[in-house]
């Protein structure tokens, strides 16, 4: 069971909590965002490397979880959503990933049920070959990078300077 893709790139109710801490330290939230950007890039690269080398699903799972944690904490919910997909694919709890078009469309509120045909309850989900999950993670990773760019744009707009 895959949750719906959030429409908004940034969940401001979460990010604002962080931004509110700028009171004490004016650059706090911005610094955190920049730190996250670096972390995300590094993590994406690590995932890419694993996909091409060790193909270790467990490792991808934890990397997905790792990045999900920080992106969700910053309110970057679409990145977090994709990371959750990667995590679940790595655990083989899901066996599908919506097409790039579906992900795109969700940005504009057209939240089509992400490939409902393929999404099956995890209990009776057929265990597919690792390569299927790796392939899906590869797709998801590409989406994650796309979402990352979108978030970066949005945040640059917010801070008034390119991040």
């Amino acid at each position: 069971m895959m949750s719906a893709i959030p429409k908004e790139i940034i969940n401001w109710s979460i990010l604002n909590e962080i931004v509110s801490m700028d009171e004490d330290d004016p650059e706090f939230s911005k610094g955190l965002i920049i730190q996250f950007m670096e972390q995300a890039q590094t993590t994406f690269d690590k995932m890419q490397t694993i996909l091409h080398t060790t193909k270790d699903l467990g490792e991808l799972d934890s990397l997905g979880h790792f990045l999900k944690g920080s992106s969700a904490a910053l309110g970057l919910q679409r990145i977090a959503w994709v990371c959750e997909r990667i995590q679940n694919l790595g655990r083989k709890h899901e066996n599908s990933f919506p097409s790039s078009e579906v992900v795109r469309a969700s940005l504009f509120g057209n939240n089509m049920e992400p490939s409902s045909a393929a999404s099956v309850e995890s209990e009776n989900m057929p265990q597919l070959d690792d390569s299927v999950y790796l392939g899906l993670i590869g797709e998801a990773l590409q989406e994650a990078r796309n979402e990352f760019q979108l978030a970066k744009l949005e945040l640059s707009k917010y801070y008034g300077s390119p991040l």
Partner: protein
Amino acid sequence: MSESSTLKLRPTSPLSVNRNVALNSALSWKIWLRLEDYEESINQAFSLQFGELDTIDDLKTKIFENLNTIRWSRVNDNASIALGFYCNRTDWEPDRFSPIQRLPTSPVNTLFGKSKPLQQPSAASTKRSFADNDSKSGSLNTSPRISASGSPKLSAVPRLPTARYGPNIGSPFLSVQNGGVNNNGGSNGVGSTGLARLPGGVAPTLSPLPFSGGRLALTSWSKKDLKHSVEPVGDSLYRILFEPDELVLTIYNELFGHLGSQAASDALLVFCNDIIPKHEMLPASAMDGPNFASNQLTQELLNSQNRKREQEGLRLDTRDPHDLLQPGLETPPTIGALNPGDAPPELVLDDTAAQLAREESEREFQLITNEEQLRKVSQSMLDEDNPDSPKQAILLLPKNFDGDVNFNESPSKMSSRPSSPLTTVGDTSNENTDSNINIGGFNGDNNNINANINTNTHNYKNNDNNNNSQESQLSMPLVDRPRTDDSLMQSHAPLIEKEVGMVHPLLENDRKKGLSSPTSPLLPRNPPPNFNRLSRSFAPKNGSSREKPFPGEWSATSDKVFPKINVLIVEDNVINQTILSSFLRKHKIFYKVAKNGQEAIDVWREGGIHLIFMDLQLPVLSGIDAAKKIRELEREHGIGIQKSRKTPHIESNKINKDQINAPVIIVAFTASKSQSDKKEALISGCNDYLTKPVNLHWLSNKINEWGCMQALINFDSWKEGQSRMTDNVLVKAPSQRSVKAVSGNPDIKYRMNRRRSRSSSTSSQSKISEALRLAP
């Protein structure tokens, strides 16, 4: 107080009404405005567009929208500002447009209307203090007030607010006050200047003052049919303030003619209600006089005596001089009893001080420094059985309240909040009538309040200068005599608890944030910008001791207060670590950070951790496993109710038992959707969970809940921690004197003895017993 005297000024002749509204669509409907007396930025006139149906109140809102970047807009709101202009007295001679139709918009008006004869329109309708003086008791105005006390007129009309104040003259200072006051008796003469612009009679004294320009040439404006109130600023100068519900368009038409004819230099002034009357701002040199010195001396004597007595700083403004003329209440007997030897050595009698003292004597506040006095005063107010009368306001000031605070703050309290008892003395029900509130702060008597506040503050400063060497002083003037003219204390009301408000400047901010109770009567809505200037201009010579009266930020007290606990954050992601630790640091909670489950166990083992926030999916050792391990170790060591079943033999299972007296609370961070995570977390020994992403509000709730729980569980050691701190304080003062002081207090002695028997710290123990031996 009084009154938002809403006057409907009937045009005496239809010809004088100028109603040529040029609805020229090419001209935008805009009105020039300028902040009166605002000095923080370049204060230029600005124009605002307005609509046909816009009222003054709408315009105020626009002003705030327009000026939302400057500090002024943050410290003011619709209720604290008013629009209007200065007007020469001659432009507003009451007899020129009698009959005045009084609109009983506020109960005050009605009240006074009943109690005051209307044949004196100026006094009855507008409460202009100076006018009162003129019309009622000319002798009051031109002679020192002390003599006024004996004036038969005053006793003849005791129920008149103005008259009531006269008797206050008991105080010796009063004799001084009018000696050199420029406003004294000036009203008669100045009225003749007949200028539309600033009257020449006042100009010399006003020249250093920040308002200049933008005055309107309005020789006959008083004939206009505008809802307004009038407030005297000086003897010959009035502030005309428009009622909030008056249409801007109407005002514009009346004042400037057709739209577009107002020049920027004719800008209407935006007043804030803490404006300090100009004539109070005279440079000290202007009032130097030998007679002031003696007064200053008296004041100092009073202060010094006061200081001896005071336990609490209670400031009270006198309501009824009759009632207040009683022993213990700063009356001449008190002064007479003063021994000159009581004068503090730091007494300084410089010219400035003298002038300040003189000004001080014009205040309308009375300082009450002990319960006895308070009881008497409140009793006297109770006796004054006048249900209609406005209520007496009492400012409760903290003990050792620094004079400077009063200087900056408490005056503002009085002047800035129309709904506070002080400013609405005339009307107890004023708070409900918005229109009154809006303008009320500016109305007639308020000016007097300001004036008196001003003098008041001068005096504080003055005292401060003289008391530099005093560590904790309540250097408030002992006597605050109302001015003879004053309406501030027109009426009395029983002193009830509701009216006792704690005053603090920074509450201001809280109020704005909606944090502090809006019902507190004395909390001002807006800090007065003027007071900054004031404090600058009267900055103490030594420049020190101008510190914030209260250490720390006041607003911090309204923040959530967290228990003193140590928190361990177990989080592998540095971003989340940073967020959590920043949050904890912000709230001054001690914390440690562990990157994985194993580190978490290691840190916990060292002891002192009360609460663990544990992410579940962690490298090396998961949060679940770490929680299990911790519970296992607790069980092994018999921590908490789970009594030890086996003794640990494995070295790696050692924990610092001295520091761990209660089971740690583990709050797991679980993925929002994973029910199994939550279940697993609770099974593994976690006490609670928070779903990720962690909401900081919930985080603080958990800290509070569990932290308080831990503080309770661990109460004894927590108490020890507190007492250890106390020990430090005690042993830090080993000098003979402090030992004496301590031993003189049976309470402290007792506590010290207890400490001696309980304290685990041998060094502090020996020091304490040594201290006790030294004590006689």
